[in-house]
């Protein structure tokens, strides 16, 4: 018999959240960061972003056509991947770098596994790792300094020796912090200059520069303020939940307070953790990448462990690793642990055990 009415399984109501709704909300939340990047680094930041996004969308479209699956480029997930990948590059990168990165992110990071929902790690971060490994000089140097400030954000120091002033004019805040850990480097500075530079890293003027974005860095991480605006939007819209970002950031705060100092230059300071929150990609990573649905735990406790894991790895890489910044690798590594975390943190069903 023919059905007169549509028949489907319950429930017959649905809240307004859809995949595309979620993706576009995250894209909207990332717009302030782009505006900040254009303001501080110039219009090239916008062009690179457009290249990256267009490449991501085109790649997704072509692969979905080829796989003969429904084309879902309008849902915003490819746009988001392209956006996040480009946000991980600096504004001085050549035009083809975001393009190659986006193609890799979509093709190898996502579609190879079957598309959205099936990728084991964050595609944008995987592509960033690929670019860093393939073109280390293009990705990790040649950064653009902000229009009206210092690369390192340190504006409170004058009259330093050559070596020290080159350091604060040409290195990003985390690069400076890394260089100061190298005792050979520090011993090459004039006496007391190492400590001066180190303390200047968390001078209130530097922290202000970091907060507003008047420092060198990659496109997406420039302005902590812009990223926090985005975070407020996402939490208000209930797209992300506080557990991952908060546990991630608090872990970094705690560890950098105890271990962020450098012997001979400076130890415990309440301002050191603030430097670590505002510098590098921590906020971008904690708010926008670690919270990626597909590659983060489903359980509430799992999200906290995940955030702590990201925080520990970030601090370990920043303070003892070979790279100045560790956010992206820490998230990638924790992504791989997600199935295990979910398994270990399975909630107990409501009601408890039956009495025998």
């Amino acid at each position, binding site marked *: 018999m023919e059905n007169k009415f549509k028949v489907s399984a319950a429930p017959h*109501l649905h809240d307004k959240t859809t995949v595309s709704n979620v993706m576009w909300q995250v894209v909207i939340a990332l717009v302030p960061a782009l505006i900040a990047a254009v303001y501080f680094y110039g219009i090239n930041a916008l062009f690179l972003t457009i290249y990256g996004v267009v490449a991501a969308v085109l790649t997704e479209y072509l692969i979905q056509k080829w796989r003969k699956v429904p084309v879902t480029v309008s849902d915003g997930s490819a746009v988001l991947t392209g956006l996040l990948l480009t946000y991980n590059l600096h504004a001085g990168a050549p035009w083809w770098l975001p393009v190659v990165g986006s193609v890799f992110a979509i093709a190898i990071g996502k579609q190879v596994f*079957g598309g959205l929902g099936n990728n084991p790690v964050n595609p944008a971060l995987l592509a960033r790792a690929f670019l860093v490994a393939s073109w280390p000089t293009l990705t990790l140097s040649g950064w653009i300094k902000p229009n009206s400030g210092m690369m390192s954000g340190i504006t409170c120091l004058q009259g330093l020796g050559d070596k020290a002033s080159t350091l604060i004019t040409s290195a990003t805040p985390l690069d400076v912090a890394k260089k100061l850990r190298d005792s050979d480097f520090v011993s090459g500075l004039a006496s007391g200059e190492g400590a001066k530079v180190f303390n200047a890293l968390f001078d209130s003027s530097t922290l202000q520069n970091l907060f507003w974005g008047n420092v060198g860095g990659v496109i997406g991480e420039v302005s902590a303020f812009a990223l926090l605006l985005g975070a407020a939007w996402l939490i208000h819209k209930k797209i992300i939940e506080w557990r991952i970002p908060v546990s991630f950031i608090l872990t970094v705060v705690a560890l950098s307070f105890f271990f962020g100092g450098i012997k001979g230059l400076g130890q415990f300071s309440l301002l050191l953790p603030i430097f670590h929150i505002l510098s590098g990609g921590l906020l971008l990573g904690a708010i926008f990448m670690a919270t990626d649905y597909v590659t983060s735990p489903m359980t509430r406790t799992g999200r906290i462990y995940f955030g702590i894991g990201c925080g520990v790895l970030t601090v370990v890489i920043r303070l003892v690793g070979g790279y100045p910044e560790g956010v992206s690798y820490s998230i990638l590594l924790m992504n791989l642990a997600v199935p295990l975390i979910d398994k270990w943190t399975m909630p107990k069903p409501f009601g408890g055990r039956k009495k025998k």
Partner: protein
Amino acid sequence: MKLKTFPGGVHPHDHKEYSKNAPIEKMDLPLKVVIPLSQHIGAPSKPVVKVGEQVKTGQIIAEPGGFVSITQHASITGKVTKIAEFPHPCGTTSMAIEITGDGQTDEWIELTNEEDVMSVSVDVMKDRIKIAGVCGMGGAGFPTHVKLSPPADKSIDTVILNGVECEPYLTADYRLMLERADDIVTGLQLVMKIVGAKRGMIGIEANKPDAIKVMQKAVSQLKDISVVGLKVRYPQGGEKQLIYAATKRSVPNKGGLPMDIGVVVQNVGTAVAVYEAVRYSKACIERIITISGKIVTNPKNLQARIGTSFQALFDKCGGAKEEIAKVISGGPMMGFAIPDLTAPMAKGSSGLLFLNKKEAKMDIEYTCLHCGRCVDVCPHNLIPSMISNGAMNEDWDMAEKAGAMDCMKCGTCAYVCPAQIKMVQWIDIAKINVGKIIRERQQKS
């Protein structure tokens, strides 16, 4: 009043505005009724009438088919015209008895009238409830006489009446509380007496403040009965959720029952049916059903005979203002989409809802994003996505570990799923298969 609630859940728009101000209206006597032989949980009832036989209203036409089963009655006066497979309000088919009358004659079998209903002995009470064929009117339809006869080792101290009506659109229980508060309270007192409970509670969601007021007034002289205001949250009316919210006790999982923790829950409609059964020996042959939806011309709360066809109820409300895309028997969260209006209403039919094309629109289904929204809202603290993904991959072990057997299919997970996965459907498949595996395991050991 401090509002109580349970962990998890969602808050859908309640859509009760369409029918909440429509007083209960008596549906015209139908020309024909179709009484499904399984409109309850348990074995189907066994017919005791033959085709061609004349029956009176309230006369027994089928006997319980097992311990967990119910007696069925003719809901109109007329002739048995068919005993065959008929459409069922769940969208399937089942054996049913068709009775054809003339739409006028309503000759009842002999009734009683106990002026002092509380003085009836407990055994007689139980008997009358059993013979009246009362089963849970909230939707699930568990035979009431079974629920009221807990094994001797379970002592019951609390009876909770469920006036939550957390399903959007439905207003049948709400109208009943406004219009028949005293009968509900007497029904509650009867249930308390039968199970020997000292405490009675009536749980009502805060979006029905006038019902709370009316019920509070009705119990104001009674020390042992209280009204519990509950936060508006779906599925507040789930048995385990209601018990937790009202008493902070939780029913053991993996097959635990409310009686394990000394509680019996009854729907307010069931309480009225209990009252009528004990006082008048009146069989459960009618109920209140909400006919609603934005497109229904005159949404109503109809008091209709069991077996009245959905078509007749729909016509009574003046039809629809727009093209109908989907019809739901029950509430929108757990009800059944039905293919047409040929099915009859049963004892558990709380609503008949009509949705237009826009309301019935379904977005495309994605793969699971692992966003965890279903985990956040699951009122039973399960991992719904793992159960449904387990079912998709036929990984029954995973489905079982994620809690398939504890799921009550409230649909909260599917309601929030951004990927629009039909999770309840998959979980249903998981429950069937996991259940089979568990039974095999038990047989082996």
